[in-house]
């Protein structure tokens, strides 16, 4: 088994337009996703939804004092809105799950596995 992080990117106007029913629907989609994960012989080992990127602060550490700026590291049309940590047997299973993960764009990244004792 290996762990993969699913980084979920979406346009953020969702936050402006969503109504109560929209939130309920969204929750249902995530429940369906978690059921699909279990059915695929994988498991959800972590994950969070994030507040919108306008609430982010970015700290850059360079040569001198750390610089704090308002907003996300990368200002993109589709912003990072949440993530899952999924344990799956291989990349094929992970990619099949990403295809049913409720987000517009999903980046799948393997977690760096540390040797024992590190």
């Amino acid at each position, binding site marked *: 088994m*290996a762990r993969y992080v699913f980084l979920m990117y979406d346009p953020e106007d969702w936050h402006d337009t969503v109504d109560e029913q929209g939130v309920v629907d969204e929750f249902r989609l995530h429940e369906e996703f978690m059921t699909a994960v279990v059915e695929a012989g994988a498991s959800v080992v972590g994950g969070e939804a994030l507040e919108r990127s306008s609430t982010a602060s970015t700290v850059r550490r360079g040569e001198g004092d750390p610089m704090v700026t308002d907003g996300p590291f990368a200002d993109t049309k589709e912003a990072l809105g949440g993530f899952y940590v999924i344990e799956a*047997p*291989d*990349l*094929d299973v992970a*990619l099949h799950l990403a295809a049913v993960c409720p987000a517009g764009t999903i980046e*799948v990244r*393997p977690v760096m*596995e540390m*040797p024992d004792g590190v």
Partner: protein
Amino acid sequence: MAALDEVFRRAWPVVVASTARLTRDLDLAEDCTQEAFEPAVASWSATPPDNPAGWLTTTARRVALDRLRRDAVLARRLPLLVEPGGADEGDPPPTDPLRLVFICCHPALARESQVALTLRLVCGVDVPAIAAVLLTGEAAVARRITRAKQKIATARIPFRVPPEEDLPARLDTVLTVVHLAYTAGHVAARGALRDDALTERATALARMLVRLLPDEPEPPALLALVLLTEARGPSRTTSDGDLVLLADQDRSRWDRALIREGLVLATAALRHPRHGRFALQAAVAGLHATAPSWSDTAWAQIVTTYDALMRRWPSPVVALNRAAARSRLEHADLDEVLHDIDALAPDLAGYPYLPAARADVLARLGRSDEAARAYDDALALTTNPTERRYLARRRTELEPSDDR
């Protein structure tokens, strides 16, 4: 010697694949295969063993075991190939090379990496030759191959033949890569018009796919397309090495045996209820191969076949070929064809056959000045010296313009 080359070519993917099952590391498998092949290439010219692939596999696996024992500590730290069927047990199954093809052509790898890995690991092409195919430097190719192998191990791309529900899509990627490799040999980027070593390896790979996936309709269709194209090989250049287009080729020099084999495969592929885009492309190649001459070609049928392709697998290249075929119909409206070609320009920027097709239509319309400019555009995008000479010659042969 040619027979021995053939032996090595067939054995290479078998040895890499079954060594990979042991090492569970593609890099090490490739190294050990190379190490097994080198002494064999040197000593077998006299007496090759009865079962060359078996001999080479045994040798490569022995080398691998030695290395693994020596580097036991290192081996434990390597991220290993994921083998859903369990690790190495007993004799390698005959479908091993197939797993190698599917891992090299995994959709999570970039197309260039798929091509580079397939040529290196499945076809045994060396890095300088791959660099020529991908129009890039040797160091860049070596880096690309290394990174792709790292991704396979780190992201755990599994070493297996995909399950049935994924097979059509995964196979399509494989066939696309094989076709790209063949095309890169059919019109080489540098040197002579063709790179025979590359077309032979791509053809051999297509044959291997037919053998190992007997129930799939598209591998024989791709093989048919390749063979029907290959049949024209000798007539594509003059004795001076100048390019001869299909329109002007001496059809008596076409390889009848290849055409027969291609037609049988193409016909069977087209009858298959699940036939795909390669069956239709093979159909077009078959219509050309059976035409008595360029003017007596079944252009209407060719256009119909391109229409079918466009309905299910639309692509700008198919649209361009369709426009070119339409320009050959009786009473073709060349202005309309030109309009269609121009509409494809944004999608095919950098594709030399678009300005070349445009130049041809403009010349037939008597608009020589514009045709000359289109030939210049095509020349600027064409690297193959034989094709460049052809385009330059066509440009000088243009009649003075009718319109001025």
